[in-house]
């Protein structure tokens, strides 16, 4: 019979031991944050400086030139001109740009004549940097409106807002879910490989088998512990990523299945590796062989979509891929049907790994 009381007693002792082990604590909580700091700094340098604003000037007159130079004079945007011959919308999409401005052909003439004229602003409503660019652009346009007309007259320059048909994501947006996946993999996997082979070697399992604690309760307490650890690590990473690198991540209840299934999957897998290995050395080798490809090819450090096709094919057989894919679906794209599919796949793999690990794992020898 599964006893929650015994499981929690084991969890309490294991947790205390974990907190007393500084190395485990470092790799479990601090290391993923350090990775975010390093990779975030490398790949998102300058994101707080002036943001690029792509402008297609179809007018070429004095007022439009002046507008561009005023925009450029602000601290927040740097104008990058796009040739009038380009299809602006396509250009933004192809170059993964969210912020753009089209100045229409008769802009200067209309402005001088006092005839209302609209510019087109492209922006990404979910991006905070895009909001900054949009705000700056509006500010500059209003100053042009106020310059020649009385406050009570309607603005002469209007704006049509549109969204660029491109997905604008920064590296750090992918890095957060990727490294959350990394920490979900690494902590339980390495820990369980290590302790399950070590406890077997020093015959601690045999000793525990002489108490009413069952192997399912023992494994259960490890799963609960790593769910807790992964959740803490998750909050730390999201906090650091958002605060320091302005990562755009969506927090939703849809993340919970991944934060539960992930640690359960890798605790079971680690247990399985430790159980089938003859000794601690073999366990460590097999553990590395299983873990390292997943660590790099599942979208932890780089989005899988940016990898060559043959590596993408490999990624699709790695369980961690479906966890990170699901985290991306929730945290970046808010695509819940994709997340649901990932949850389904991860559930099947997790249940299989848990059942096999619990079956093969032996308390006592015959």
């Amino acid at each position, binding site marked *: 019979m599964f006893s929650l*009381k*015994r499981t*929690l*007693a*084991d969890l*309490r*002792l*294991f947790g*205390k*031991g*974990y907190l*007393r*082990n500084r190395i485990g604590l470092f790799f479990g909580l601090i290391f993923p944050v350090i990775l975010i700091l390093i990779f975030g700094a490398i790949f998102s340098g300058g994101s707080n400086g002036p943001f690029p604003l792509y402008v297609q000037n179809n007018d070429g007159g004095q007022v439009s030139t002046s507008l561009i130079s005023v925009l450029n004079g602000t601290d927040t945007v740097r104008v990058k001109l796009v040739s009038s011959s380009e299809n602006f919308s396509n250009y933004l999409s192809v170059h993964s740009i969210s912020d753009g401005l089209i100045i229409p052909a008769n802009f200067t003439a209309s402005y001088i004549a006092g005839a209302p004229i609209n510019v087109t602003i492209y922006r990404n409503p979910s991006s905070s940097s895009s909001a900054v660019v949009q705000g700056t652009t509006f500010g500059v346009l209003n100053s042009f409106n106020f310059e020649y007309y009385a406050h009570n007259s309607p603005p002469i320059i209007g704006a049509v807002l549109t969204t660029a048909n491109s997905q604008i994501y920064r590296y750090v947006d992918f890095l957060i879910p990727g490294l959350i996946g990394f920490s979900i993999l690494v902590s339980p996997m390495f820990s369980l490989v290590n302790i399950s082979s070590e406890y077997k070697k*020093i*015959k*601690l399992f*045999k*000793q525990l*088998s*002489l*108490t*009413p*604690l069952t192997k399912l309760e023992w494994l259960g307490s490890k799963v609960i512990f790593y769910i807790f650890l992964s959740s803490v690590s998750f909050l730390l990473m999201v906090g650091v990523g958002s605060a320091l690198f302005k990562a755009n991540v969506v927090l939703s209840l849809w993340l919970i299945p991944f934060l539960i299934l992930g640690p359960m999957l890798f605790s079971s897998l680690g247990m399985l590796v430790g159980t089938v290995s003859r000794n601690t050395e073999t366990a460590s080798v097999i553990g590395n062989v299983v873990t390292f490809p997943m660590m790099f090819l599942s979208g932890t450090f780089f989005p899988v979509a940016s990898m060559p096709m043959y590596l993408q094919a490999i990624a699709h057989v790695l369980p961690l891929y479906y966890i990170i894919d699901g985290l991306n679906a929730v945290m970046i794209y808010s695509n819940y049907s994709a997340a649901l599919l990932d949850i389904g796949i991860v559930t099947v793999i997790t249940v299989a790994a848990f059942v096999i690990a619990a079956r093969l794992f032996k308390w*006592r*020898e*015959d």
Partner: protein
Amino acid sequence: MIPVEIADVKKNYGSLKAVDGVSLSVIKGEVFALLGPNGAGKTTLIEIMEGLRKQDSGSVKVLELDPWENGGELHKKIGVIPQNFTFFEKANPKEAISYYASLFGVEVSPGKILKEVLLEDSATNLFENLSGGQKQKMGLALSMVNNPELLFLDEPTTGLDPNARRAIWEVIMGFKNKGTTVILTTHYLEEAEHLSDRVAIMNEGHIAAIGTVDEIIEAHGSGERLEVHGSEKMADYIKANTDLKVEFDGKDLISINIDRKHDALAAMAAIEASELEWHELRTRRDSLEDVFIKLVRGVVDAQGEVTFSGKKVSNNDGGQ
């Protein structure tokens, strides 16, 4: 109720007969020692009784339960310290006792138990920082948590210094005085003699002798002897002039078997009549050690290995 009753138990590891047809029973309230060199099969036998291993054949009843089939039920009633007791490195004895109490679903006072095993001074020291003797005491403490009727101690003092060993003995004597039945394995003769009510000498998977120390010496020893230091000539004189069984060790020790009271007088008369030089006359009985050496056909060193004429004999115990 007889706490332990086993009959014709066999266990092989491949071609090695670790336990080869052992039958014995343990009486309630006694300290029973399985004494033997490494590789004798002691640990395998005790682990079969604990339900940690399954015998190949034979019957095993411990507290009227089949240990392998009813391990869960049995483990609530017994206490065990396996060979080389170990625990989570980052836990201290106090936490370990509370942990075991939660697992067994019992209320205990860690302080009281630690006092009983003489470990109260190290209650909050992490397991990794305890000495070998303290670790064993913590094992004893854990084995007491469920207030067991029957205690199994597998080599409880192996590798400990003499002081630590005596401290563990003191704790085990405390169990005995409380009326707990204790089964222990050891390769220390002194330990078996000091602690146990009955001893089974195990060798190569067999029980070579079983009973109280006196009974074993009586059954397997060579009885009482008269020993005297003298020459081979004297040994020959005694042989020629009495019907006594006389042995000469090749140097200067003459050993004469005393089967009847009269034999001692006859031997002394012959020594006197020989008019040869002699000194240090004494009577001697076989000790447990003499019997043990005879039964295992060698001397057991501090590590439990059997040595024949100075050469170590390889065996493959290592706690199997």
